[in-house]
C-alpha cells in the first residue's frame, strides 16, 4: 500500500492525529488485564500483515512529520545525537541495515543501488537522492548514524559490547520517555537502568542483559514498553522537562480523552555485523485515550491495568497524580465483561460496551 503521510505537529498546536488505520494497528501493549515487568522478549521476524511488527523498521503515516520534529530538536540541542569515536563502524553497520531493510520492505518508498563501494540512496518521502562511498565519512553530510537516523522513525541506542556488558556509546535520542543520552553516554547496562524501581530486585536486568549479549546476527529480537504522555509530545526529555512537565497539570475531566496519550515503545535489537555492536531502536507510538476507547477490548483492559498498577510503577511512569482522573474517565468504558487474551483489539468478535453513559 502507499502511505498517505500526515501533515501534523508534535508541539505547539499538537495537530498530531491517528487515522482509523493507525488506531487499528496501534501496538497496544497489554496482553492481559494486568501488568508487571517481564523481560518479555520474542524474536523480531515479522508479524501479522499490516501490523507494526511486520517490517524490520516500520514506516507509518507519521514518518515525514516525525522527521521534521527530529530536525527541530537537533537544531535546538545537537547533543541529542552523539557517537564516541570507536562507534563509527557501528554507525555504518546501522546505515546498511536500515537502507537494506527499508529498500526491501518498502520498494515504492526507498531505493538502494550499489556499485562496489559507491552507494546511491533514494528516500522518496523526504525527497533525498544521495550518492556516497560506503565507509568513507567524508562523502556524507553527517556521520553515518546521524545521517540514517535523521531518516528513520524511533530513537536509536548503539551499544558497544565488551567485558560481558553493554555500553551506551552512541545514539540518536529525540523521542524519549524522560531519559537523556547526554547523561547516559558511556554508561553500562546496569548504570543506565539504575533509576528503574522494582526490576533490579526482581533480577530482571541480569536476565535481560544475558539475553541481549547473546542476540546473534540473523536473529533480531523485540519487546514492548509503555508510559503515559499528556499531549502528543515526542520529545519528553529531561532537558525539556520545564516545557512539558507542567503540561501534566493541564488535564481536566473534559479534555482528558483527547489530551492523555498512551505512549508505547516497540523496542527491537539487532546484532551489527562489522562492529559486533548491538543496536537498540526504540520506536514510539502515541494514541489518545479517546481513540483507544473506540476498541471495546482496549477500553475494558486499560481501565483494569491503570487501576491495579503498583504505586511505584505509576510514580516512575509519571502519572500517579493524574491516576484518579484517568480512572474516572476510563471506568466509563469498563462494563466488567471478560476480555479475550492477546494484544489485538478483535473489534469483530469483542462485545460492544454494555454500559449506559
Amino acid at each position: 500500500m502507499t502511505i498517505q503521510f500526515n501533515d501534523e505537529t508534535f508541539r505547539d498546536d499538537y495537530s498530531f492525529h491517528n487515522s482509523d488505520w493507525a488506531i487499528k494497528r496501534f501496538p497496544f501493549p497489554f496482553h492481559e488485564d494486568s501488568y508487571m515487568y517481564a523481560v518479555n522478549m520474542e524474536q523480531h521476524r515479522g508479524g501479522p500483515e499490516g501490523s507494526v511488527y511486520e517490517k524490520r523498521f516500520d514506516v507509518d503515516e507519521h514518518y515525514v512529520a516525525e522527521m521534521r520534529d527530529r530536525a527541530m530538536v537537533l537544531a535546538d540541542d545537537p547533543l541529542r545525537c552523539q557517537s564516541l569515536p570507536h562507534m563509527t563502524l557501528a554507525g555504518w553497520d546501522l546505515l546498511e541495515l536500515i537502507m537494506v531493510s527499508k529498500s526491501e520492505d518498502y520498494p515504492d518508498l526507498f531505493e538502494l543501488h550499489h556499485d562496489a563501494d559507491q552507494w546511491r540512496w533514494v528516500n522518496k518521502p523526504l525527497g533525498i537522492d544521495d550518492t556516497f562511498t560506503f565507509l568513507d565519512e567524508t562523502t556524507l553530510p553527517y556521520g553515518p548514524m546521524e545521517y540514517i537516523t535523521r531518516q528513520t522513525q524511533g530513537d536509536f541506542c548503539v551499544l558497544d559490547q565488551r567485558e560481558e556488558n553493554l555500553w551506551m556509546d552512541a545514539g540518536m535520542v529525540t523521542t524519549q520517555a524522560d531519559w537523556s543520552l547526554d547523561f547516559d553516554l558511556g554508561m553500562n547496562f546496569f548504570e543506565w537502568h539504575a533509576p528503574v524501581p522494582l526490576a533490579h530486585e526482581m533480577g530482571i536486568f541480569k536476565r535481560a542483559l544475558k539475553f541481549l549479549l547473546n542476540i546473534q546476527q540473523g536473529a533480531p529480537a523485540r519487546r514492548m514498553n509503555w508510559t503515559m504522555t499528556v499531549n502528543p509530545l515526542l520529545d519528553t526529555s529531561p532537558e525539556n522537562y520545564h516545557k512539558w512537565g507542567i503540561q501534566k497539570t493541564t488535564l481536566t475531566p473534559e479534555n482528558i480523552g483527547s489530551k492523555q496519550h498512551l505512549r508505547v515503545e516497540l523496542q527491537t535489537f539487532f546484532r551489527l555485523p562489522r562492529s559486533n555492536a548491538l543496536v537498540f531502536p526504540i520506536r514510539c507510538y502515541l494514541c489518545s485515550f479517546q481513540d483507544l476507547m473506540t476498541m471495546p477490548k482496549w477500553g475494558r483492559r486499560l481501565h483494569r491495568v491503570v487501576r491495579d498498577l503498583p504505586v511505584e510503577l505509576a510514580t516512575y511512569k509519571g502519572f500517579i497524580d493524574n491516576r484518579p482522573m484517568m480512572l474516572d474517565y476510563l471506568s466509563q468504558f469498563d462494563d466488567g465483561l471478560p476480555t479475550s487474551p492477546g494484544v489485538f483489539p478483535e473489534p469483530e468478535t469483542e462485545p460492544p460496551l454494555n454500559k449506559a453513559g
Partner: protein
Amino acid sequence: MSAAPQKAKAGAEQINVKVSAVVPLNDLVTRFEFQRTDGQRLPTFSGGAHTVVTMNDDGRTRLNPYSLMSDPTDTSTYAISVRRDDQGRGGSLFMHTRVKVGDEMQITYPVNLFSLDLRAKKHVFFAGGIGITPFMSMIAQLERSNGNWELHYAVRTEALGTYVDELRYKFPNKVHVYYDDQSQSIPLEELLDGQPLGTNAYVCGPKGMIDWIHATAAAAGWPDAQVHSEEFTAPQPGKPFEVRLCKSDKTIQVGESESLLEALEREGVEAPFLCRGGACGQCETDVVSYDGEFIHRDHWLEPEQQAGQKIMPCVSRFVGASLEIDR
C-alpha cells in the same frame, strides 16, 4: 505481550553452503571454503567470529565450532582452517577424511565471542598453533581501517607454521614468528612492558599459553579488561555416565565419545547452545542433585557454581553414582 510469539531456536541461524575448496596446508591443517548453495551473499562478520559446522557422520550429527578466518568483508566465501586431532572425538577427522569439494553442509551465522575492542589504540595478538585462525580475520579487518596491530605467533616447527609464509610476505614488519623446535619463545615481559597506553592484548592458543599471558599481563599491571582470550575446549571423551532429566522425566546414558549436550540432543531434549566449547554460557544447566564428582571443563561458571550448582553440558562430564539435572 505476544504479537507473534516464536520460540528461540537452539543455536544460531543456519546457512546452507557447499564446499568450494579444500586446501591442505601442512601435515595437520587443512583449509575449507564455503559458498552459499542459493548463490546469495554470506553475511559480513566481525574479526574473531566463529561458525558452527554441522557434520553428518553416518547418521551421527556432529557440531563443531571453527573461527572464520577469511576477510570479513568477503561475502562470497567463508574459510575455516581445521587442525586434525587424531585423539579427538572425530569431528576434525571427519572434516579431513570425508569432506570434499562440492559437498553440501550447514553452517551457522557468525557468532563473535572474541571481538576486537574498537577503542584500542593498538592491538597485540598472541597466537599459538591453530590459534592463529581468529587473528587472520581480525588482521584483515584492521588492515581495511588502518588499524595499529602486531602479531606474535608461536609454532612448533617451520613445517607446521600455518599461514606463516603468507603473513610474513604481506606484513613483514608486523608479524613475529617463534619456533618451538629452535627453542625460540615469545619475549612476553618485554613486549608487555613497551606498549603505549590503550593497547589491548589478545591471545588464542593452548590453555597454558592463555594462562601465561593473563598472569604475566596482570603482574605487569595490565587491566584485565584489556587482555582478551578465546579458548574453545573441544569436548573430551570420558567414561560413560547416566543422567536423570527431571523436566523431561527421562533417564539417559552419555556415551564415551559424546558430550552430555549431544546426548540430550540425541534424546530429543532441546537445550540452547551457541559455541559448544564452554565459553558462551548458553547451555548452562542447573544441577538438581548429585552423588559423585564433576569434571568441569568450561570457562563460564564461577567456582561456587561448579561446586554442585550448575554444569555446562557442552564440555563437562560426571563420574559417580547419580546425577539429576534441570532439563
